[in-house]
C-alpha cells in the first residue's frame, strides 16, 4: 500500500463535497417531492466504456431502419421492417408471418434468459450500461451539462432567482431535450414503414396521422423520462430492479464499497496518522456521492436504486490516484469475496466467478432455445393450408344422391415468388371438387395459383357418393402440392353426411 504524500495537505489534493445523498433510507418519504440530483461529470474507465456503449446502441437505433436489403421486385427492401398493414415482419433474410409469431416469443425467451445470465454474472449491467433509460438519461445529461455547466454551476443556477440568463439557459436546455425526444420518436416510426419514403412524407408534412401521433407520444415520454423523471423511472416505475434483486447471488458482480479497507473514514488522514489513530482509506470526499445519477451513497452498501453504472468506481479511483492509494476502494466485487475480505485477507475478485453451475445452466438453456429456433427457422415450410368446414349446412344432399360438403380453404404462399399448387383429397374414393364462382365441372384435382407472399382463399365444394362414406363422419385429407415438385402441405378435415 502506497503512503500518501505528506508534502501536500490532503485538503488541496482532493476536491471535497459536503453532501447528503438524495436517496437515503432515513430521508426517504412516501409523500415527499423529488429532490433534484445534479450528477457531477466523471472521467475514467467505466465512463469511457459507457460512452462507447452509448455510441453503439444509439447508432443501432438510429441507423437500422436505413439499411437496405433486396428481396426482389414488389417486396420491401428495408432490412428491418415491421409491416403492420400487411402483417409481416422482415429481419434481413428472415420474413415472419403472424402465425409464426412464436419466433418472436422465442427471441423474448432468449432475451429473458440472457438477462438472467447477465444479472447472475455481472449484476445489473443491463441497467447500468445498455438500458434505453440509462442511455437517454446520459444523453440528456450531456445536453444539460453543455448548457448549464457541471454540478456546482447547475446547483447555483437552480437556486438562483429567475433572470434573463437563467431563462435563456433553461429554455434552450428544454428545447434541446424536446428536440432529442423528437429525434427519438422520429427514428422509431421508421421501423414501421419504408424509411426513405416516410422521411420524404414527413418533410412534406404529408405523413399519416399515426406517424405524427407516435412521434408526439414518444417525444413526450422521452422528454418526461429522460429529462424530468430520470432515476425515478428506475426506482419507482421499472419492475426489473425488483426482479433482478432475486436474480443476484453471492457470486454476482456488484458495485461494492470495500469498507474493510475504507473504514474508519476520515477527512484528516494526516492528523490521524500523526496521532497514531487507525484510519481507513476512505477520505470521505463524497465524490462517489456527487457523481451518482441515482443520488445514493454506495458506502451505505447494496441498495435498490443502484443501477451499477460504476461511475462511483471511476470517481473513487481518481481520488485514490491523487492521494496515492491503490485503486479499488469501490470496485466490482462479489458478495462472497467481500465477505472473505472482511473476515480474512483481501481477496481480489477475478473473472473465475463468472463460471459456476447457475451460469452454465443459463448458457445451456439460452443456447438450446437459440439452436432450436435456428433449426426451426432453417427447416420451416413456406407453404401452409388451412381448412374451415362449413357449419351451416354441414352437408347437402344433391339431386343425384351424392353428398356435398363445403370448405373454405386458405393456401398460404410465403415465398417471394408466385407459385402454382395442386389441391387434391385423400380418404374418400371418388370425391370430386368444385369451387364457388366457377362453372367448371367437378374434378378430382384443382389447380390453384397463389401470388407471391400471399394467401388465396377458395370456397371448395367436395361431393362424394354415400356408399363411399362412413356412418356419420369420414376423415378427409386435403393435400396441397407445389406443381413440378417442391413443398407440400396437408390438412386433416372431416366429411359429414346429412
Amino acid at each position, binding site marked *: 500500500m502506497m503512503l500518501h504524500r505528506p508534502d501536500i495537505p490532503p485538503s488541496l489534493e482532493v476536491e471535497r463535497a459536503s453532501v447528503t445523498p438524495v436517496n437515503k433510507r432515513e430521508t426517504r418519504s*412516501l*409523500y415527499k*417531492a423529488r429532490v433534484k440530483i445534479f450528477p457531477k461529470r466523471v472521467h475514467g474507465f467505466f465512463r469511457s466504456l459507457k460512452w462507447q456503449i452509448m455510441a453503439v446502441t444509439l447508432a443501432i437505433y438510429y441507423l437500422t431502419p436505413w439499411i437496405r436489403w433486396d428481396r426482389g421486385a414488389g417486396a420491401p427492401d428495408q432490412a428491418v421492417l415491421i409491416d403492420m398493414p400487411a402483417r409481416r415482419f422482415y429481419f434481413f433474410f428472415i420474413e415472419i408471418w403472424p402465425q409464426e409469431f412464436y419466433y418472436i416469443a422465442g427471441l423474448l425467451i432468449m432475451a429473458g434468459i440472457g438477462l438472467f445470465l447477465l444479472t447472475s454474472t455481472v449484476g445489473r449491467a443491463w441497467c447500468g450500461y445498455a438500458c434505453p433509460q440509462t442511455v437517454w438519461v446520459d444523453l440528456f445529461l450531456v445536453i444539460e451539462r453543455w448548457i448549464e455547466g457541471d454540478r456546482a454551476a447547475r446547483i447555483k443556477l437552480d437556486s438562483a432567482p429567475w433572470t434573463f440568463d437563467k431563462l435563456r439557459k433553461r429554455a434552450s436546455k428544454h428545447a434541446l431535450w424536446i428536440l432529442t425526444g423528437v429525434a427519438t420518436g422520429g427514428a422509431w416510426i421508421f421501423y414501421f414503414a419504408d424509411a426513405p419514403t416516410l422521411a420524404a412524407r414527413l418533410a412534406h408534412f404529408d405523413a399519416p396521422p399515426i406517424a405524427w401521433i407516435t412521434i408526439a407520444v414518444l417525444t413526450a415520454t422521452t422528454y418526461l423520462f429522460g429529462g424530468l423523471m430520470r432515476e425515478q423511472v428506475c426506482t419507482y416505475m421499472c419492475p426489473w430492479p425488483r426482479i433482478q434483486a432475486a436474480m443476484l447471488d453471492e457470486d454476482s458482480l456488484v458495485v461494492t464499497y470495500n469498507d474493510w479497507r475504507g473504514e474508519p473514514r476520515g477527512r484528516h488522514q494526516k492528523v490521524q496518522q500523526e496521532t497514531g489513530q487507525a484510519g481507513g482509506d476512505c477520505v470521505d470526499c463524497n465524490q462517489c456521492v456527487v457523481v451518482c445519477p441515482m443520488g445514493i451513497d454506495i458506502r451505505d452498501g447494496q441498495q435498490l436504486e443502484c443501477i451499477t453504472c460504476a461511475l462511483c468506481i471511476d470517481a473513487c479511483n481518481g481520488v485514490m490516484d491523487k492521494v496515492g492509494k491503490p485503486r479499488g476502494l469501490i470496485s466490482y466485487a462479489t458478495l462472497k469475496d467481500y465477505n472473505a475480505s472482511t473476515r480474512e485477507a483481501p481477496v481480489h475478485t477475478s473473472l473465475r466467478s463468472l463460471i459456476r453451475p447457475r451460469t452454465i445452466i443459463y448458457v445451456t438453456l439460452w443456447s438450446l432455445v437459440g439452436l432450436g429456433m435456428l433449426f426451426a427457422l432453417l427447416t420451416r415450410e413456406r407453404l401452409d393450408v388451412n381448412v374451415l368446414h*362449413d*357449419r*351451416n*349446412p354441414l352437408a*347437402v*344432399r*344433391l*339431386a*343425384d*344422391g351424392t353428398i*356435398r360438403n*363445403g370448405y373454405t380453404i386458405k393456401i398460404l404462399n410465403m415465398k417471394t415468388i408466385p407459385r402454382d399448387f*395442386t*389441391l387434391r383429397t385423400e380418404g374418400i374414393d371418388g370425391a370430386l*371438387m*368444385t*369451387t*364457388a*364462382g*366457377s*362453372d*367448371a*365441372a*367437378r*374434378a*378430382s*384435382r*384443382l*389447380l*390453384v395459383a397463389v401470388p407471391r407472399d400471399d394467401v*388465396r*382463399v*377458395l*370456397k*371448395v*365444394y367436395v361431393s362424394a357418393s354415400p356408399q363411399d362414406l362412413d356412418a356419420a363422419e369420414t376423415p378427409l385429407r386435403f393435400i396441397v402440392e407445389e406443381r413440378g415438385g417442391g413443398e407440400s402441405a396437408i390438412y386433416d378435415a372431416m366429411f359429414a353426411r346429412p
Partner: protein
Amino acid sequence: MAQPEHDEMSGVETTGHEWDGIKELNNPLPRWWIWTFYITIAWALVYTILFPAWPLIDGATQGLLGYSSRANLAQSVQQAQQAQSGNLEKIRTLPLDEIRGDPALLEFANAGGRSAFAVNCVQCHGAGAAGAKGYPNLNDDEWLWGGTLDDIHHTLVHGVRHEADENTRNSQMPAFGRDGLLERAQIADTADYVLSLSGEDHDAAAAGRGATIFAEQCSVCHGANGGGDRAQGAPSLRDAIWLFGGDRATIVETITNARRGVMPAWGDKLDEATIKQLTVYVHSLGGGEASKPAPAASVEAPAAAMP
C-alpha cells in the same frame, strides 16, 4: 371537540375510525394522486360545458361543441351509403352474368346478399339456406323453377303463387284425393310407382298399376319418366331430393291434397340492387347453374377466384 388522536408508532393523526383495534391513519394523499383528482374535476367542468350534459326538464344542455351521437350515427350511415353507392349503382345496371364475372363486385354482392338474406329469407329458408319441410334447400342443385341467375332473379322478383303478381311462379297440382279425381287405392298405387322412380322400396304389383295412372294423370307435368318440368314448376320425382318428404305416407298425402307452397314477390318490397345481390348470393351457395351448358368434365379444374 376532543383532541385528535395520534398514532403512537408513526405519530400520524388518526381518523378516529376503528375496526377491531385497527385504526385508520389520516395520512396525506400522494401529490400525484391529488393533482390527478383536481385535473379530473377541471376536466369534468370543461366537459359539461362543451358537451351535452346537464339534464333539464325537456332535454339536456346542448354543449358548446354541438355534439350529438344521433347526428354522428346519421353521418356514419350516410358515409357508408356513399361509399357503397358506386358498387350498388354498378350492380343495379350491369347484367347478372357481368356481376358474377367481376371478382370485386361479386364479393360486394355476396356480402350484401348475405345480409339481405339474413333479414328477409332466413325465416323460411333457414340461416344456412338449408330449408325445411316445404321450404327448399337453396344449397343443393335441385331447382323447381331453374337455378340460373336469371331464373333465380325471376323467382325472387315475382315470388311463388303470389296472387298480386301476374308473372309469379305458379303451378297448379290438382288435389287428386280431396277433389275426388282418384280413388284411395289408385293413389296408393301411384305412390308406389313414384317410389319406384327413385329406386325406393315399393310394391312392384302396385307400382305396375300405378304406372298407368301416372301416365294418364301426372306425366303431363312431371314428364313421362317423372323427370319433372321446370317450365311448369313440376319437380323431378326421380332424384334424391324431396321437398315435403319421400316416404310413402307423405307421398300419398301430397297426391291426395297437392302442395301449394308460397313465396312473396320481393320485386315491390326490395330495390333492384338488393334483389340482384340476393340472386348472386343464392346462386353462389353451391347449386347455382351456369347460363351456358357446363364444359366437359376434366380431371383437373382451375380454381375460380373466390371472394
